[in-house]
Each structure stands twice: as structure tokens, then as C-alpha cells.
């Protein structure tokens, strides 16, 4: 983590749907928390019995609120354990170590119109966006793709939302992405946050329609994608060899053996954890490295990427 950490205390947990848990966190020592703007997230250190998870969650509390941070966590069936821990173990009174808020997905202040597309739990950063836009009066529209049964789940956070549409997987209710993107005025900024397939489809559709890349913004939640075939990593500077298991990321394995590894987003987006590869072939899963850097094979983002070879030697 970058900089100081925060000690938080769980004030309330509340199941808002069968797989969605709302968690309210305050400063463990009392007093105000550092302020966070729309789109910010915090990284929570979740201490299980056998292992530790560090997961990033978007703050859904209104931007600037300093009395509490609120997050919503979806329980993922093929969870690596972090979301299951939040759903099964976490209870009021528990203490958690968290990063300071960071923001890799802030709204564009020069936009004349904000067009948001959310997929599933990817709606969470937009809950703070909507609060921000309602406060500033900025023109906005939110298009939510979700299960039919969850169209009302986030209503408490969307009272002030301007234009709001829900879509689900049934004839006549699916979002026509190309049609939506075709009719937007100049000065619109597009934001998408959802599963990788939705993100990719929206980004591709925007490019096809002629949107300038400067007006298309995406937040991936890639940590769930960090598992895979086990391999060995050798940290050349510290002389440590570590086995990377199938359900943990390379970064988590590095942290498990106590090596220092800077990181921020834990989703392959920010570039803070970029590490030199001395031997072996990386399997790139990040959204940060360019095509040439990927081909070069000399850099890796350990938070999401893994190895094609059975062994990687890292400059750590």
C-alpha cells in the first residue's frame, strides 16, 4: 500500500439482497475519516483464519462524507475468499486495516454530459457519481444492466439520479449499446464499469462509433481474474522462492512471504505494482501495459498477471 493506513471499525452490516452486503465503516479511533471524491475506492485488509485478502471496494458514501465509508460487496460464487469473508465472518465491532482512499475513476469535470453504463455490482462507483452530479447539477444518465430481480436494489442511492434506465437479459429489455452510443452529443464523457465482457463491448462499440478515446473511461474489477495454474516465482533481490497457488494472485503470494511490493488498485489498472521480469514468460491480464511492453515481456503487473512458464524470476 502507498502511504499510511487507516484503522476502521465495522459499524453496521446489512444484507440488501441475497448476495449483496452493505458495510458501514468508521474510524476506529473516532473522529473524521480522510475525504474521498466520487469514484474513489479503498483497499481493505481482510484477515481470515488461514490467509489475508486485500480487496479494493468503491466507496458509495456521498463524496466528501467524513463520518463513515460505505461499501457494497457482492458474494461471488467462485470467490477467492474475500467476498465470502465479508459475507460470512465480518460483523459490527470488527476492526480492519484499510488504505487511504484512492481514485482511478474520477468523473471528468469538463464534461457537458455524463453517460454511465453499469453492469451488476459495477454500479457501485456510479452511486457516488450520482450524488456528486445531483449536488453540482451536472447533466447525467445512468444505464444499469442487472438481474431483473435487482432493478430496485440500489434505489436508496439513486433517489437523486436524473435519467435512469434498467436493462436485463430478456427480449425487449437488453441494452442496445451501439444505438445508445450513436446518439450522444459532443462533450459527452462515457463511463463503464462492469464485468470484462460488458466493458470490452462498450469500449469496442464506442471506438466503432467514432468516440475519441479521450472521452471513454472504464473501471475494471479484475482481481477476481487473478487466479489460474500454479507456478513458481523467484524474487531475485530478496532471494525468496514462492509457490503461487491457483486461487491467489502473484501479488498476494509475494505479500504472503513478506516481500515489499508497492500496489494501489490491485486490479491491473494503475501501474503502481509494475515489476521487472528477469526470466520466464508472463501471462498479461492487466489494462495498463501497452502492446509493445507486453511483447517485450520484461514487465509484469503482479496484482492480476500470472506466468505462462512454470517459473518467473522477478526483480523484487
Amino acid at each position, binding site marked *: 500500500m502507498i502511504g499510511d493506513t487507516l484503522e476502521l471499525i465495522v459499524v453496521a452490516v446489512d444484507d440488501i439482497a441475497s448476495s449483496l452486503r452493505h458495510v458501514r465503516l468508521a474510524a476506529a479511533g473516532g473522529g473524521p475519516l480522510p475525504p474521498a471524491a466520487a469514484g474513489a475506492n479503498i483497499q481493505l485488509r481482510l484477515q481470515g483464519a488461514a490467509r489475508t485478502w486485500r480487496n479494493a471496494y468503491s466507496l458509495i458514501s456521498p463524496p466528501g462524507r467524513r463520518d463513515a465509508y460505505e461499501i457494497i460487496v457482492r458474494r461471488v460464487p467462485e470467490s477467492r475468499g474475500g467476498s465470502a469473508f465479508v459475507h460470512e465472518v465480518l460483523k459490527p465491532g470488527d476492526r480492519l486495516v484499510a488504505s487511504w482512499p484512492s481514485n482511478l475513476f474520477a468523473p471528468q469535470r469538463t464534461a*457537458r454530459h455524463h453517460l454511465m453504463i453499469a453492469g451488476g455490482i459495477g454500479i457501485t462507483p456510479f452511486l457516488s457519481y450520482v450524488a456528486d452530479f445531483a449536488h453540482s447539477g451536472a447533466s447525467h444518465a445512468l444505464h444499469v444492466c442487472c438481474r431483473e430481480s435487482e432493478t430496485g436494489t440500489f434505489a436508496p442511492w439513486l433517489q437523486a439520479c436524473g435519467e435512469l434506465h434498467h436493462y436485463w437479459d430478456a427480449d425487449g429489455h437488453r441494452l442496445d449499446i451501439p444505438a445508445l*452510443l*450513436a*446518439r*450522444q*452529443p*459532443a*462533450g*459527452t464523457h462515457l463511463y463503464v464499469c462492469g464485468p470484462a465482457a460488458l466493458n470490452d463491448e462498450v469500449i469496442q462499440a464506442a471506438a*466503432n*462509433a*467514432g*468516440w*475519441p*478515446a*479521450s*472521452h471513454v473511461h472504464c473501471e475494471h474489477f479484475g482481481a477476481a481474474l487473478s487466479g489460474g495454474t500454479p507456478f513458481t516465482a523467484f524474487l531475485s533481490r530478496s532471494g525468496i522462492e514462492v509457490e503461487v497457488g491457483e486461487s491467489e494472485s502473484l501479488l498476494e503470494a509475494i505479500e504472503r512471504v513478506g516481500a515489499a511490493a508497492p500496489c494501489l488498485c490491485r486490479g491491473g489498472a494503475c501501474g503502481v505494482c509494475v515489476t521487472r521480469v528477469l526470466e520466464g514468460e508472463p501471462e498479461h491480464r492487466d489494462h495498463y501495459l501497452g502492446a509493445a511492453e507486453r511483447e517485450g515481456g520484461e514487465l509484469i503487473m503482479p496484482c492480476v498477471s500470472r506466468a505462462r512458464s512454470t517459473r518467473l524470476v522477478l526483480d523484487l
Partner: protein
Amino acid sequence: MMQSQIVSRPRYRDLAAEDTAGTHLLIVEGDTLAAGQMAALATAFAVVAARLQTWLVSAPATALAPGRVRRLHTVEEARTALEHIEDGFGIADRLYLQGTEPFMWSLATAAGRAGLSPTQIRMQHAGSLKRRVWCTHCHQTTENVTTNIATCAGCARALLVRDHFSRRLGAFMGVMVDAEVPGEVPQREEVFR
């Protein structure tokens, strides 16, 4: 004079149509047109010809152009037309400008007010190197400057014309050249012909 160590100094490149689904608007400063230039533009924009509008500003009546052609007399007229485009610009539209820097930036700043992003605007320089100069002392602009030292149209100071450029104002910076030793003004040279 088109290259500079100063990073704010814009660089221009030959226009090429980007094949997007939106409207493509090409605005050409007619009196900078050289032989063969329009033919080159017609080739460069063939791919979007069906969605192309070309505005010819102060062009000879005989000039031909690709796409749907509109003729305008002055840059002011073109600027007003840009700001009042029916239904405004779309996110997939592109604006292409060709001409002198004061011409292109007059229109680019107007398009910006109409909502167009700089990433939707392309520019190719043609014609004179004359500059619009913004006085850092009285904040007035002086048009059609071709010399390295210009007399400010607002405050009459002798201004040294810098390569520092403001995209918001569409103008180069001018600073008083004899501020240290009043009256000591170097020889003027016509460098932006």
C-alpha cells in the same frame, strides 16, 4: 518557425479523414489554396465523402471542393455558423481545418465553445505564418503579426512575440521587449511571413 522548443507551440500534420460514423466538416481558408491542394484533400476525404461537408471561406468562386460545399465570405461568418450548427455537434463528428494559424484557431476555439473536444479537431497549416499575439500586459490581441517585434494594438507597447501558445485564446504570447531598458527596442524583422 513551425517547430519550437516551446512545448505549447502547436504542431500540425497533413489532414487525413478518420472513418467515423459522424459528420465530417472540413473548413478551408480559400485564399491560402495552392494548386493541387483541393485535389489532395478530395483524395484524403474520399472515404467519408458521403458524410462530408466542406466550407470554403473567402475562396475564389471557381474553387471546387469535395462533399457538400458551402461558401462563406469571412472567418467571422464561419465562426458564427459553427456556433449555431443545427442540433449541435455529435460525439462521433470530426472537424478538419486548413489555413493560417489565426484562421484555424478562431474556428477551433468557436468549435470548443460549441462542445467539440480538441481530440475531435484536426489541423493542417497552409499559407502565411502570421500570428495572433496576446499582450500579457493589457490582455488585448493584435492580429496579423509577421514580425518578431510587434506594436500592441491595445497599449502600443513593443512586444516580443514568443512561441508560447494559448489554445484557449488561439494566440501567441507577447511580452514587452524593452521592459528592462525602456526605449531599447531591437531591430524588427519579418520572420512570420
